[in-house]
């Protein structure tokens, strides 16, 4: 299955004024492709992801899930700041998506426990989110999406609020969890390093309203490790992307 966005546009109404968030955004994500959407703050990255998740409807354009009858795939979204429910235990949070899809309790737990074990959370299944560290919360947020085995995985800057070291550890874990990227992944970030480390392709958006400004292919082989960040090719690609992104970032800073 592929994800195809056709000329997506959306504007918000803020205090009576029209605020254009996205304008004619088009791109495709292939079946086994990990696409990072990179752009400055406020360029509509999260809005784009919410449209892909079905949480928002674009005012113009459409999203097609090519090769999926019904155009209604099982998506799972990983949210900024984990989005765990404070009133649910780790296990209840992780299995929430399965529960909403009508999966029985035994099967839910059977699918969740191996993942919790791998993520080092098996001792904390009965704990509440406030009893976990920030990194553990984010891991639980990732597991909630992974355990549903979604056809499309959507990730909204999941590591943005983490400290640099925890971020690196979780990026490394994510690379291992994804393996050979068996599904389309759309990952929104404003971090160039993260986009190059994780993505097969990077789509750069302009400052608001977000438009596709350019695309970069990342050719580092998978499975990748953090070591790729120290290669000259990584630095070269980062320089290229920054040159394209710089004007958008500066225009946001001027606002």
């Amino acid at each position, binding site marked *: 299955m592929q994800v195809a966005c056709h000329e997506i546009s959306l504007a918000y109404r803020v205090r009576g004024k029209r605020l254009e968030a996205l304008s004619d955004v088009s791109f495709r994500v292939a079946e086994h492709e990990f696409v990072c959407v990179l752009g400055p703050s406020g360029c509509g990255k999260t809005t784009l992801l*919410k449209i892909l*998740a*079905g*949480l928002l409807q674009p005012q113009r354009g459409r999203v097609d899930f090519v090769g999926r009858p019904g155009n209604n795939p099982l*998506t*799972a*979204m990983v*949210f*900024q*700041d984990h*989005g765990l*429910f*404070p*009133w*649910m235990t780790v296990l209840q949070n992780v299995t*929430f*998506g399965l529960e*909403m*899809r009508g999966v029985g309790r035994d099967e839910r737990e059977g699918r969740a426990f191996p993942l919790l074990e791998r993520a*080092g959370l098996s*001792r*904390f299944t009965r*704990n*509440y*989110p*406030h*009893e*976990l*560290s*920030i*990194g*553990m919360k984010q891991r639980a947020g990732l597991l909630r999406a992974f355990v*549903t085995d979604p056809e499309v995985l959507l990730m909204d800057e999941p590591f943005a609020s983490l*400290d640099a070291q*925890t971020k690196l*550890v979780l990026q490394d874990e994510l690379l291992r969890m994804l393996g050979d990227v068996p599904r389309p992944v759309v990952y929104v970030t404003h971090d160039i390093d993260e986009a190059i480390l994780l993505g097969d392709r990077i789509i750069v958006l302009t400052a608001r309203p977000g438009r596709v400004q350019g695309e970069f292919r990342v050719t580092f082989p998978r499975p990748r490790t953090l070591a790729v960040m120290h290669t000259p090719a990584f630095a070269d690609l980062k320089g290229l992307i920054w040159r394209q992104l710089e004007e958008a970032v500066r225009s946001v800073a001027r606002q």
Partner: protein
Amino acid sequence: MNATDRLAKAGLADTPDEAAAETPFAESERPGRESWLGLLLPVSLLLLWEVTARAGWLTQLFFPAPSVVVQTLIRLMASGELPRHLGISLQRIGQGFLLGAIPGLVLGLTMGWIRPVRLLLDPLISAFFTVPRLALFPLLMMIFGVGEASKIVIIAIGVFFPTLINSVAGVRAIHEVHFEVARSYGARPWSIFTRVVLPGSLPLIFAGLRLSLGLALLLVIGIEFISARTGLGAFLWFAWETFKTEHVYVGMLVAALLGAGIAAVLRLAEHWLLPWSEGLFHR
């Protein structure tokens, strides 16, 4: 074992700020060691009162010694007079509370969750909310008579508003991302209600119930002053009319203990039902 200990034991306290955040609380706010400080002043005042009353420095007519009040309390309890009044007041509070809290909760959750319902009802609720509850009592007596019904209805009205307003606030305090998470995983409206709206609003609902029960106690005493022969308020009023000062003190003491008891039961229920809510207020 607290969260930090659990993390440390598992070697998984991977963000040191977690441990750091809890250390100052653990060291400087240990409730066990310092709780005696809160008792120091009341106990000292009671002792001072006892000594000065026995020495005859206080007028016994207005300030009987605490020991005399306690003896009167024991006697009234043993005779069954006080339990009878207390039971009747509790029954009125219970019936009025259920009659007011259940509709307040249902309507509050609906208003909090469904914006058009909130927009429709908010002006009406705001207008009625400002009317002092006791000012409604004469009208209620005209409609429902001087029997039990008017008393229960006034308590129900008193309970209804704080429960409703806190339920609305409870739903509105739920972060939008939790609704988005639920919707993104395909939750249907009933699941959103049971898994997000209801549990997410419970901390503020409990705050509303605490307020409501405090108000119910206030109202039951007030209306029993005015139009009852039984109940804690009637007992207090009769004590005043017959100038039995010890009975007045006993009535006030029992009313205070009743309020504290209700608050304690609610705190226990909250602790049991909402173990997660502690995390909301510690950071």
